[in-house]
């Protein structure tokens, strides 16, 4: 983006702004055009939000961060450059560059980096922090020629790497990926010495724009896709199975099919991070089973569920997979080597990302892997991610049983030997609960998403409660599947968010959640902040059945009425209490207090 474009973007009026975002852009240099670009990129990411960007004092990044008092909903961007670690590493200071002084520079950079890391970690207790670590070249102050690295230079890079390692492990800190920035912003074109000397702004306009774009992308934090549907012939392996046979399809370097082996390894890696994998192929199903049973295959047969193998249109197979997974097309990526098949599926599901597998182009395969990582990338892998495929299989088995002719739901659920573990501890570190609230569409009370700031604010509220439900039955564990969040005013509960994973449908977990809340919280009324969305039909149906009429905003459910209408519940209910949560909360409050002093 050019500066003129950025200014033009910012001139456009916001029609009906829905929210105002307060953002602290903290850097040691004059924020100048970085601020303009960041505001413009944020406007593009959040067209309906107003962004108020506040900046700190020149030359005092650590002080700015220490003085910061983020209010509810604020976010913090810390843009660190070498001069913030020691002014002599910048181009504006006239400090000594004598060779005997360089060890002191390194030592001072080490101390300052520790101070900055501590600030960031403390701030992350109160607000999400987005950090960029030095992106500019070091000045040529080391005694070696430019072609030879000096150990002091290595030490400085190690100091920065150490800060990155430390803060990127914090839950609410996101650090700009230096490797990706290297790809989009040429290293030699980042520094503008004239602008730095003249106005205290060290970046070229191009670099400022690209860095701002990356920060805005981090703040935007699009939810990851959930599933990948892959073709088989000339995609998962090289060759057409029906033409050359089970033993001739290949995925090895010797057969010139190495990219297919890499693809198997790559999607296997996605699967272990909780991405659902399925195959849709025009093929003979018995041949496919034989090929997938080959001992040398890299992707386990069990990693794929379901397999949709027939000779019908690909879009029909994809539709069946979506039904099995019970997720929406826009949560899925489809990969096939045939541009025609890709076009056919995309025509049927315009919201789905449909990608051609570039079987003859190694560079393009590398780019495909990067693209897939961007679609599916997440901050961490939870225990639920690791059991997702297993629980999808068991959910499908339960669904099939429930829909079998002559089936009796009550006896089936009684025999399921289900256990629901409820935790009524509002744990701010519960990533899975945060993820559920932000990813669930169908059983979702109002479709409202929570930012990191909203999440923190909620947990700081004294009358807030959060109930999570973890489910397991004889078919296997489903993990943490439901979250209810709200406030307790003593006489009634106000539920602001209520989500349940689609894998947990048909087990009456939602009824058990309400029963537990009525009993545990000792209230006779629960008010639900309900709002119909295009995708929350399952919760609409559930509420309509309970109320005997269509659900409407701010509806309430009385305990007596619920008890009269709720079906029989056969779960064993377990209460989970975690003393560590209280301890952690105390620690968190203590560090908050220290940070404020």
């Amino acid at each position: 983006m050019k500066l003129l474009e950025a200014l033009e973007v910012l001139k456009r009026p916001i029609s009906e702004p829905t929210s105002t975002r307060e953002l602290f852009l903290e850097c040691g240099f004059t924020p100048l055009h970085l601020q303009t670009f960041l505001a413009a990129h944020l406007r593009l990411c959040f067209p309906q939000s107003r962004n108020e960007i506040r900046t700190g004092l020149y030359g005092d990044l650590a002080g700015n961060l220490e003085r910061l008092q983020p209010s509810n909903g604020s976010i913090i961007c810390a843009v660190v450059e070498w001069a913030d670690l020691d002014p002599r590493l910048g181009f504006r200071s006239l400090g000594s560059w004598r060779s005997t002084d360089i060890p002191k520079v390194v030592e001072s950079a080490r101390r300052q980096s520790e101070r900055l890391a501590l600030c960031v970690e403390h701030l992350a207790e109160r607000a999400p922090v987005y950090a960029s670590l030095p992106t500019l070249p070091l000045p040529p102050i080391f005694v070696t020629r430019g072609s030879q690295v000096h150990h002091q230079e290595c030490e400085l890079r190690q100091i920065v790497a150490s800060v990155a390692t430390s803060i990127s492990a914090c839950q609410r800190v996101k650090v700009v990926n230096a490797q990706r920035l290297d790809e989009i912003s040429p290293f030699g074109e980042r520094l503008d010495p004239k602008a730095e000397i003249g106005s205290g702004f060290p970046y070229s306009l191009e670099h400022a724009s690209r860095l701002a774009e990356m920060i805005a992308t981090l703040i935007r934090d699009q939810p990851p896709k959930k599933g990948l549907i892959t073709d088989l012939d000339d995609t998962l392996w090289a060759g057409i199975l029906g033409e050359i046979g089970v033993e001739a399809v290949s995925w090895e370097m010797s057969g010139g099919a190495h990219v297919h082996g890499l693809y198997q390894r790559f999607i296997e890696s996605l699967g272990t991070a909780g991405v659902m994998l399925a195959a849709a192929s025009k093929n003979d199903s018995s041949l496919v089973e034989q090929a997938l049973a080959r001992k040398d295959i890299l992707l386990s047969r069990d990693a794929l569920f379901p397999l949709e193998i027939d000779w019908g249109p690909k879009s029909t197979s994809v539709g069946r997979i979506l039904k099995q997974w019970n997720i929406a097309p826009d949560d899925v990526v489809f990969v096939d080597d045939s541009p025609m098949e890709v076009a056919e599926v995309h025509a049927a599901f315009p919201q789905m990302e449909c990608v051609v597998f570039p079987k003859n182009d190694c560079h393009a395969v590398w780019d495909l892997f990067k693209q897939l990582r961007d679609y599916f990338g997440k901050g961490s892998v939870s225990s639920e991610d690791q059991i997702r495929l297993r629980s999808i299989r068991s959910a499908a088995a339960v669904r099939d049983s429930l829909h079998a002719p002559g089936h009796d739901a009550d006896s089936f659920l009684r025999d399921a030997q289900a256990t629901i573990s409820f935790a009524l501890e509002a744990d701010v570190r519960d990533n899975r609960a945060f993820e559920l609230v932000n990813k669930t569409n169908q059983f979702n009370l109002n479709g409202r998403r929570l930012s990191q700031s909203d999440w923190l604010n909620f947990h700081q509220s004294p009358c807030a409660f959060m109930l999570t439900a973890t489910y397991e039955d004889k078919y296997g564990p489903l993990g943490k599947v439901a979250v209810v969040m709200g406030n307790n005013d003593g006489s009634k509960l106000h539920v602001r968010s209520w989500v349940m994973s689609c894998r947990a449908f048909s087990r009456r977990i939602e009824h058990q959640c309400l029963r537990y809340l009525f009993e545990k919280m000792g209230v006779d009324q629960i008010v639900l902040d309900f709002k119909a969305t295009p995708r929350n039909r399952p919760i609409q149906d559930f509420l309509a059945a309970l109320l005997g009429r269509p659900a409407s905003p701010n509806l309430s459910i009385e305990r007596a009425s619920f008890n009269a209408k709720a079906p029989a519940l056969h779960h064993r209910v377990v209460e989970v209490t975690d003393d560590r949560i209280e301890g952690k909360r105390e620690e968190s409050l203590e560090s908050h207090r220290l940070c404020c002093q």
Partner: protein
Amino acid sequence: MAELDDRLVLCFSSIFPALTEEEIRGSDVALLSDMDSLAGVTLVALIDQEFGVEIDLEDLLRLRSFGAVQRYLCERRVLNLSPKEQIIR
């Protein structure tokens, strides 16, 4: 020339959105920049990126009028061309 003129107006209006095109053409750069210290620095960066002409803030302020900036850019762009390109022009 007309294209340069339009783009220069666009640069000014992106920094001073309240001014009409007529006001921009009749404006005094130094006075405008005095109203907002960042405006001058931003205008210098815009001129650099949009016209490929480096100009110091002090030089820009000395030019004062919109017309003078326009003429300056025209001359600098011509000077930046190769002798052959200048003859063709």
